[in-house]
């Protein structure tokens, strides 16, 4: 399979670009922020995602979706990144769907997700840095489990309908095994959300599980085998976040190039200065490297290739580096105007920080690459 988009995928990219640029450009995010919107995204926009078929694009056709893959989801995420469009797409339609597909729990939720009636949130992290250690406990109780513990950095966790939570059913916090993934309704008694606005104006919650009782149907996959559906969830979430970062980096770079072509100093367009041309060209190269890494990971995931897991970490780390560089360069090359709230470029800087931190930062994924390489 060639490492570029095929004809159908290119058409999808055109559609997604037009749609998001129209329905949720940066002005949309700015308006939500200025209104101090308590949801973190616009439900009307989410309804449009459903009309477009985006909410269920990765859901199997048998469950009312389009049955598309990571490449296609990445195309939409790239445009989300380019426009900084706030939505629960990554958590709901990509990560949750990847975890739930092929499971009994999925029969209850996938159709609802495809229809746009269910928003999902991912309760994974327990510390300020994403890591592999999971302490939140799920003890057997009657026909089900009792969950106790806390999670943080749960995007949309205060408004989601469905919470996917990874819990420990055996062993101790550092063990790789003994995890179970649960899919529970957000209104389950004992579950409380403490929403926090983040630097990029999105909202993530700290969740407290205080003896939350769930029945056996809530288990995704098999008990003590949570690492299987969690693996699917994390691969999808990481690759998706990488695609969104890439779109964001590309968006910031495009705006910067426009500025370089238009701003004049010393009687000349600043884009004609070699010092700035070299910065811009280096940035372009970094983004192209990241683009290839992201597409490679998406294709390998869609093929269920054994190298996919490694490619995912390469993509997440590389996209994080490229997006981080892009937003630094964007503010620097915009000069003073780039520091103002009136300019949009600062929104890119803020969102890049959040995306880079999500599901493992550059260091986390570089470490994974090293471990995969046996060093």
């Amino acid at each position: 399979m060639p490492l570029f988009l095929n004809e159908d995928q290119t058409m999808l990219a055109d559609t997604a670009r037009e749609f998001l640029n129209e329905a949720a450009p940066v002005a949309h995010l700015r308006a939500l922020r200025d209104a101090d919107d308590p949801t973190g995204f616009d439900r009307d926009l989410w309804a449009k995602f459903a009309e477009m078929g985006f909410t269920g694009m990765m859901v199997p056709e048998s469950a009312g979706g389009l049955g598309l893959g990571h490449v296609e989801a990445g195309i939409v995420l790239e445009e989300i990144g380019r426009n900084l469009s706030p939505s629960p797409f990554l958590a709901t339609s990509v990560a949750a769907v990847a975890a739930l597909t092929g499971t009994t729990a999925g029969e209850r939720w996938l159709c609802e997700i495809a229809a746009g009636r269910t928003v999902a949130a991912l309760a994974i992290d327990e510390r300020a840095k994403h890591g592999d250690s999971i302490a939140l406990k799920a003890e057997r109780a009657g026909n089900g489990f009792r969950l106790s513990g806390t999670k943080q950095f749960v995007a949309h966790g205060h408004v989601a309908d469905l919470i996917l939570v990874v819990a420990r059913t055996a062993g101790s916090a550092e063990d790789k095994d003994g995890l179970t993934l649960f899919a529970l309704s957000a209104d389950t008694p004992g579950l409380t959300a403490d929403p926090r606005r983040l630097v990029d104006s999105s909202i993530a919650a700290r969740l407290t599980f205080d003896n939350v009782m769930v029945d056996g149907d809530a288990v995704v996959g098999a008990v003590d085998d949570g690492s299987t559906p969690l693996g699917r969830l994390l691969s999808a979430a990481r690759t998706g976040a990488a695609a969104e970062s890439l779109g964001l980096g590309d968006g910031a770079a495009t705006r910067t190039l426009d500025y370089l072509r238009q701003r004049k100093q010393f009687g000349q367009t600043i884009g004609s200065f070699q010092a700035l041309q070299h910065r811009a060209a280096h940035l372009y190269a970094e983004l192209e490297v990241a683009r290839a890494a992201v597409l490679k990971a998406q294709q390998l995931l869609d093929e269920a290739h054994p190298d996919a897991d490694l490619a995912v970490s390469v993509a997440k780390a590389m996209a994080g580096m490229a997006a981080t560089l892009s937003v630094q360069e964007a503010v620097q090359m915009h000069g003073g105007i780039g520091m103002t709230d009136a300019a949009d470029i600062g929104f890119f800087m803020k969102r890049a920080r959040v995306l880079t931190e999500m599901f493992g930062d550059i260091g986390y994924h570089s470490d994974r690459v090293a471990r995969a390489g046996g060093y």
Partner: protein
Amino acid sequence: MSDITQFRADTRAWLEENCPPSMREPVRSDKDVTWGGRNPTYANPDQKLWLDRMAERGWTVPDWPTAYGGGGLAPAEAKVLREEMAAINARNPLYSFGISMLGPALLKYGTEEQKQEHLPKIARGEIRWCQGYSEPGAGSDLAGLQTSAVPDGDDFIVNGQKVWTSYADKADWIFCLVRTDRTCKQAGISFLLFDMASPGVTTRPIKLISGNSPFCETFFDDVRVPKANLVGELNRGWDVAKYLLGHEREMISGMGLTSDRPLIDRAVETVGLDAQGRLADPMLRAAIATFDVRARAFAAMSERFRDELKANRAHPAQPSMMKYVGTELNKTRHELTMAAGGSDLIEWEGADSNDGATARAWLRTKANSIEGGTSEIQLNIVARRILDLPTQ
């Protein structure tokens, strides 16, 4: 079974049968590299066997037409061959500027006679080529070159000097940029082919910081070259030169694709692993891991570039970006390798360091971001031709 699946199975079986085990070992020094030519040298008889077997199938140049000694493979098949060779760590059977630089230019600009004459010999490794581009006064400003070719009956008479001519002292033929009109800069350049054994050609190796001499100064003193050896039109050689440079940059960017294994193995050998199986020096480990991410991402970019090229989707200035990224990456790889080896690797002589082979290779890579156009020239090209930024 689809055709391509069948092709993969057949290719895998053929390689398994025909690639000698020693040709699946990493290239350890220049001696392991097969260059072919009139006076070939082989460190090992398997090198010749492997070259001959691959050349017989046209697989030294898998995607060239069979009429010119190529394999006639479709892009998807050529990709499968590359993947299957990589899977068994098969060495490149033939390193050749004829393959990576002149061949593509001849396929595009050469006459039928020129193609028939030169391409099959390149494919079989019978003639080794060198590149006469840079001159003492024409480096980054290549189009300022002064070596002249003056018409004389059916011939040109060539006079002048080239520099940084890679392996000129070992090459059989040269593809050379010459000035045929002094009134125009770019539009006064022509592209000539001639035999390095012609009277009036002399070469002098240049000793580099590595202690080796991969480059030469090359002098032309009334060298007689038949006009039939002009590639493309008179005074239009700059088009050929630029097209060829694209391929040269693509080839040089391939240095970014070298395996990371020797670097990692060296680090493990020097500092060891801790109880968790991590390199015991955490700073070195972090530096290598960051590099590893970039190297793997670059491998994906290379794959993407080749796929786009075969589908005629690549931007013509894309090789400049590949060259920039690949060479900077390769320099980093060698810096890290030296750091990983510590004082063991800075021994310049003796068997322990293989006479400083790693250090010499490290020093050699410093030219990567200079040769074939400096990193700064590549960034200029990307800024102007891809990003469309204005000139001053």
